[in-house]
Structures are given as structure tokens and as C-alpha cells.
């Protein structure tokens, strides 16, 4: 039986919208494990009980503008997560708009270099999500984040330098935006546990084109299986 997911994202015109093909691509990527039981922007009124009706929340550049750390929704989202929920954050890390969300989900958006061709490579770690996943190239925005250092994250994907050489991370508590020129390896996807729950963030996803990359589709499908304890 398929798990139930809430795909939360904007439905308006312009970029980072679930329209323009993104919804269809995500539905296909996760088809084996999830049904998108609800799609859209209607998150504000949802309580933790409401969220628990879903096995996974997929936050695609979710329109969380204005959500405060002491709001009902912030409390519900953290309650859901810490008590065993699964949260997949794609592209814009919307949970970073409030401090507790930046902490729990691992980061806050800072800026990004221009949309361009990027080489993505699996991190040199042993993790079930990465089994069979190879490097790939996509056109996308590689978001720079301030990152939470207290979490025990497993970095899954990195954006590498032009010569493809992995380098040690810099000392700053955020990702380096200009990895291509700086020699710094930039994490593009990670996973971690929070309490009894699971969180996975993956940056690529500015438009539907990204989700059509075969290797990235395989990676995301395995992320979905990990989130529902299927790996």
C-alpha cells in the first residue's frame, strides 16, 4: 500500500511553482511509494494531528514566508518531525525562515549564484540512499545556505569544482557559494534524524527540467524510500 504524502508548494505563476511540470515529475519519481494525497499551499491551519495523517511532507520551495518560530504551524511542523514524521525539503529551504526551523531542518537560505550547469557527485560515504547513484550534471541554482552545525547530518551530494576534485569544507558555518572557483566542496543534499523523525534536504530543483535528470530521479526515489524506512 502506498504511503500518503503532502506535497506543499506554491501554485502561483513564475518560478518555484508546482505548476510548470514540477508536480507531475515529483508524482512520477515517487509513484512507487507515495500517493500525493494533498498538493498545494494550504499548510497554515494544519495541526500536528493533521500533519500526522501524512507519512511524508514534501516541501518544494514551500511558501512559508512570514512563518514565525512561535506560530502554531511552526510548533506543529516540529512536533510532527520530532515524533516520527518524515520531511523532504526540495530546493529553497523554506523551513529556514524561522530560527527553530533553520535549526531543526539544518539551514537557512543565503543566496545563490546564477542558474548554470553544475556537476553533482555523491559524497564519499556509505549510505543506503547512495547505492547505485553516480555523478550527474544539471542546469540549476546551487543554493548557498547558512547551516546548522549541531546536527549529525550525513552529506549525500556535493557540488564539485570544475576539475571535479573533492575538497575539504571551509571553516565558515555556511556553504561556500562559489565552489567552482573557491576549491570548496559544497553540500547539496543531506539527511539527518531529528528525534524520532527523519529529514532530507536536496537543493537541485529550480524547475521541472532538473527533475527529469535520470540519475537525480533515482536519487530522489531512494530518498523517498529512506524517509519511509523502506531502505
Amino acid at each position: 500500500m502506498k504511503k500518503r504524502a503532502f506535497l506543499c508548494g506554491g501554485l502561483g505563476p513564475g518560478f518555484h511553482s508546482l505548476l510548470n511540470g514540477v508536480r507531475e515529475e515529483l508524482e512520477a519519481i515517487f509513484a512507487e511509494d507515495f500517493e500525493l494525497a494533498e498538493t498545494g499551499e494550504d499548510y497554515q491551519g494544519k495541526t500536528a494531528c493533521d500533519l500526522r495523517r501524512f507519512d511524508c511532507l514534501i516541501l518544494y520551495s514551500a511558501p512559508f514566508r512570514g512563518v514565525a518560530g512561535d506560530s502554531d504551524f511552526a510548533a506543529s511542523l516540529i512536533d510532527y518531525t520530532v515524533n516520527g514524521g518524515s520531511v523532504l525539503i526540495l530546493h529553497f529551504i523554506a523551513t529556514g525562515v524561522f530560527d527553530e526551523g533553520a535549526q531543526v531542518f539544518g539551514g537557512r537560505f543565503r543566496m545563490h549564484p546564477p542558474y548554470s550547469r553544475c556537476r553533482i557527485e555523491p559524497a564519499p560515504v556509505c549510505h543506503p540512499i547512495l547505492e547505485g547513484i553516480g555523478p550527474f550534471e544539471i542546469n540549476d541554482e546551487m543554493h548557498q545556505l547558512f547551516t546548522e552545525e549541531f546536527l549529525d547530518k550525513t552529506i549525500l551530494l556535493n557540488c564539485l569544482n570544475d576539475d571535479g576534485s573533492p575538497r575539504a569544507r571551509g571553516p565558515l558555518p555556511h556553504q561556500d557559494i562559489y565552489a567552482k572557483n573557491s576549491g570548496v566542496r559544497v553540500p547539496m543534499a543531506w539527511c539527518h534524524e531529528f528525534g524520532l523523525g527523519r529529514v532530507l534536504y536536496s537543493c537541485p530543483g529550480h524547475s521541472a527540467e532538473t527533475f527529469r535528470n535520470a540519475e537525480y530521479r533515482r536519487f530522489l526515489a531512494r530518498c523517498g524510500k529512506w524517509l519511509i524506512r523502506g531502505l
Partner: protein
Amino acid sequence: MRKALLIGDRELAALHPITGMETAFGEVLRGLCEVSTADERVYGGLTYPGLRAFDLVIFMPEKWRQTVTKTLVADLVTYVVHGGRLLAVHHGLITDNTPELSLLYAARCQDYAPYGALDYHPVTGSSLAEGLRPIAASDEPYWFDFDVFKQTDVVMELEYGNGRHPALWRHRWGKGRVACMAPGHSTDSVMAFAEPLRRVAGWLLDEGGTPQ
């Protein structure tokens, strides 16, 4: 009268038993709340609904790896994010492999040094520190790395080595409130910090009653 729950180890503790702490906190917080305890025989079974019965949780277990389960951590986070008030004291701040609590505390213990005579100072700029006097107490000095996202109000600092280090701080977390006090190795130390502790407890308790 409001109710506080002191969570700590009694028989299990090698260095920091809560025996005596309940009396010390009861005395320091007299008039603000009544203090009861949950030791290692019972606190592993605490749940969010159970915690909600308390206006304040004072957290200072010693044997983390043996006693604190992921479920209890989840219930503590749930308690705070929905409006609970948490005061973490001394060894309760040693979070080991529990990043969830480091996030609640907005700090992660970096290191500590042996027990000795120490000097603590109120921090200029903290409204809660106004009028407080420096405190000389014997304790273990702890120092911390602080979170990059959650801003906290440092009320007291430890003078140690060539610098000063946060020793008592407070912030809101979700709908709740959190305060952390690094000293507290002994009941004498808790009593030495009676005044700043009462102020912090007053701040923790002053909005609403039992967390919703």
C-alpha cells in the same frame, strides 16, 4: 501554586545526584512553584502528556547514555515547542549525542575543567541581570559553542582564563522558553545562584499557566 518537575539521577549518579537538589531548588523557588522530582526509576517513562502537567521542567540527569531515550527527548522537544518551560542545569547541559537538546539550549558543551573557586558576573545589557551582584562560587567551569541561528540573552558570565564565557542564558524556543545554567555541581552552588535563578525562573513562568 505552579508546579516544577526536577529530572535527575539519584542512585545512578556518580557525581551529581539530585538528592538534596530538590530541597535546594524548593528553597530557591519558594513562592514561585512547588518542586517535585522524577529520578531514574521513573523519568524514562515520562511522556508529553505527563510533562504538560508541569509549568516548569528542571533538567539535570547525569547518566545520559543509560537513561535518556529518543522518546523522552522527543517528548521534551514537544513539550517546549508547544509552550513548555525548560531550565537545564549543569550536567543537564552535557548533551553528548543528543543534538535535539543542543538545539533547544542553543548551545553545545565544548569542554570543562576541574572543580574550583570561580567568579561569575552579571552581563551588562541583559535586562534580567540589572542589579545582580557578582557571585563567587565553587563549581566546574563549562564552556560552550553557541548556535548560529538562535539568539540567546546571556545573563551571567564565568570569568575563566583570559576571557568570559556564558554561564546563564535564556531564550524563547517555539512557543516555549528555555534557560540554561552552567553552574550547579552542588547544592551550595545552586544556593549561591539563588537570585539569578529566581529571576530566570520568574521569566520562565511569567506567561500563561500550564503549557497548552
